[in-house]
């Protein structure tokens, strides 16, 4: 969701960078991405020696807020959560048939999905190395299943390459590495790199190119049973008299490189997208719901925070209690963990240092669009043998993600029909009505799957900038602003500490909000207990 491309994203950004700025910029971006560290979670915090009766008020019941409440309560703190919405979970949520979703501007969507179908407008996948999220899923009994990111039989599509015909990922993957290997082998065999490498090394590289690039004995990448073993056959091997296979013909080298379709290989290779990935069975909101179950007694729904004050003796938070006649109340506690998104917090009256206030005001939010489309049948499985995974395109929708669940089932199914992050198309989609967004996603999608219009059943289009309780998807930091403000944002200010994906280096991912929360409670505990 908030992961941008990755989703956090960086994911979509990457494909955009390639499309707009060319390969050089893409490479630069990829390099910095490649260096992104995996999550550093090892264990939940051990908070011993809490002073009995110490109270903590938590603002927001997203994953950051609920991790904090869960751990602090275990450590002996008295916790309460104030939540604006009528449900816990924050951006961890799913939409199902019968749900209504109202956005800023007043448009109301009635989700028409069939029983059992769902759509994750926010987070939707969990990398294997997001160990905090996985830890809490395990601890709280949230059932997980594999989320398929990389599908070699899904499509990669460019409206300006191959006459707009989508190509199978495996074909582009095979041909790309085949031609790169062939070219490199050629230059090695012409001794063009002899200044760089020894004769021994040259032999090793040549061997590797032959193997990894599917090159023949003369180091050529061409139509053969060998290359078809990776890219697929013209006629696949069969049985009996139909046994013999027919090899397929590689796409032309020039077309492969100019198509830009290799960007998908790069995106799929990122640490955040590597196999294995997971999703909760039945919707991402199962995580939020599992936390909520543990925290029934401390979550106060429909409380709108208007002011956050502190002095030497404690914090006092003013809020409107919409669950009880919209009366204005003041909640007091010894400490406060505020997980309200900065898009909103920057407009609230919060009594913190000037430097923290400046940090709160320094971080913009991505508009991000996600569109869930329900179809009458799984044509991607039945007609095209695509089981989960993602097709990538240069069209505004950027990708189509097929459901990684209930494969081969009959009846309606929901796919992710668009995921836009913060490019101009994302802003444009945000300005459309929900119906216009859905139509635009179908108009893109039918260029990849001709069955789209015929099989379309219903849809829901979430523009995060118009989500009333978030007013944006997740934080966008610049290097400069991170340098200027990140530390000030994350350092406890007397009795108030902030948490959320915005206060992490894993922006837009649930892991970021959890790790930020853990760091916040460690700071709080140190301050409150005088320990450490």
């Amino acid at each position, binding site marked *: 969701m908030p992961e941008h491309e990755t989703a956090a994203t960086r994911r979509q950004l990457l494909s955009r960078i390639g499309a707009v700025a060319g390969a050089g910029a893409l490479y630069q971006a990829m390099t910095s991405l490649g260096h992104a560290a995996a999550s550093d979670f090892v264990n939940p915090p051990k908070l011993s020696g809490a002073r009995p009766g110490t109270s903590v008020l938590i603002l927001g019941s997203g994953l950051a807020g609920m991790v904090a409440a869960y751990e602090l309560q275990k450590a002996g703190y008295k916790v309460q959560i104030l939540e604006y919405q009528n449900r816990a979970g924050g951006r961890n949520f799913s939409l199902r048939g019968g749900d209504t979703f109202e956005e800023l501007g007043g448009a109301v969507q009635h989700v028409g999905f069939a029983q059992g179908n769902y759509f994750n407008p926010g987070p939707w996948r969990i990398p294997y190395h997001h160990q905090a999220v996985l830890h809490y899923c395990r601890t709280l009994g949230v059932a997980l299943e594999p989320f398929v990111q990389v599908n070699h039989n899904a499509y990669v599509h460019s409206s300006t390459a191959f006459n707009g015909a989508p190509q199978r990922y495996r074909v582009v993957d095979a041909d790309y590495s085949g031609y790169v290997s062939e070219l490199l082998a050629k230059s090695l065999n012409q001794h063009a790199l002899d200044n760089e490498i020894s004769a021994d090394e040259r032999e090793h590289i040549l061997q590797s190119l032959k193997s990894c690039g599917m090159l023949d004995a003369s180091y050529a990448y061409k139509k053969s049973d060998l290359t078809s073993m990776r890219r697929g056959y013209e006629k696949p091997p069969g049985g009996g008299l139909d046994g013999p296979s027919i090899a397929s013909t590689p796409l032309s080298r020039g077309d492969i490189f100019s198509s830009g379709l290799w960007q998908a290989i790069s995106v799929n290779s990122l640490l955040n997208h590597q196999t294995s990935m997971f999703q909760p069975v039945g919707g991402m909101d199962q995580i939020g719901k599992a936390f909520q179950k543990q925290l029934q007694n401390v979550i106060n729904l429909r409380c709108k925070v208007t002011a956050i004050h502190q002095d030497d003796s404690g914090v006092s938070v003013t809020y409107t209690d919409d669950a009880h006649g919209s009366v204005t109340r003041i909640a007091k506690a010894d400490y406060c963990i505020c997980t309200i998104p900065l*898009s909103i917090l920057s407009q609230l009256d919060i009594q913190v240092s000037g430097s923290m206030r400046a940090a709160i005001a320094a971080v913009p939010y991505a508009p991000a669009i996600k569109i869930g489309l329900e179809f009458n049948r799984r044509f991607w499985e039945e007609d095209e043998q695509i089981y989960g995974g993602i097709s990538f395109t240069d069209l505004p929708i950027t990708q189509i993600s097929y459901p990684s669940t209930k494969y081969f089932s009959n009846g309606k199914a929901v796919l992710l029909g668009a995921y836009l992050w913060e490019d*101009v198309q994302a802003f444009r989609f945000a300005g459309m009505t929900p119906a216009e967004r859905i139509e635009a996603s179908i108009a893109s999608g039918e260029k990849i799957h001709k069955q789209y219009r015929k099989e379309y059943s219903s849809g829901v289009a979430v523009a995060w900038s118009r989500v009333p309780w978030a007013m944006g998807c997740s934080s966008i930091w610049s*290097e400069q602003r991170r340098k200027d403000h990140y530390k000030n944002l994350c350092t406890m200010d007397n009795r108030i500490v902030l948490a959320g994906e915005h206060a992490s280096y894993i922006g837009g991912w649930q892991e970021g909000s959890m790790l930020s929360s853990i760091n916040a409670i460690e700071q709080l505990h140190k301050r409150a207990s005088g320990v450490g």
Partner: protein
Amino acid sequence: MQKFALMMIALACLPNAARADSADAITKNKLTTTDGRVLYQTLCQGCHMADARGAEGVAHFPSLSENPKLASGSYPAYVVANGFGGMPWFADKLSDNQIAAIVNYVRTHFGNHYTDVLKPSDVAKVRPSAESIKPIFD
């Protein structure tokens, strides 16, 4: 009165139908137009809404209609280029010319009647350095 307002809206909409819409203004994910109206519809109305009256959620997207902060064109130009709070910067997506076009469009529509015109060279003065808005990938 209400009827009159509706008529005005209908009239205002008429000539628009023939003009390019925001989809045509994007080529290879870049905005190519300098039409302030199209730029507004593409980038701004997602938050500030089609009528520029903004929206009220937990917090608010400010109304650009009769907003005294538009009295000088350089302030909205600064905000569009650099962002403000949760609002992203647009300096990476728009030329000085395009930012001036948006500001001039907003300052002469939605109940605003400013007569002075913001020049692209005025925008250049408030544009952040490319370095300062270089995004982080994480």
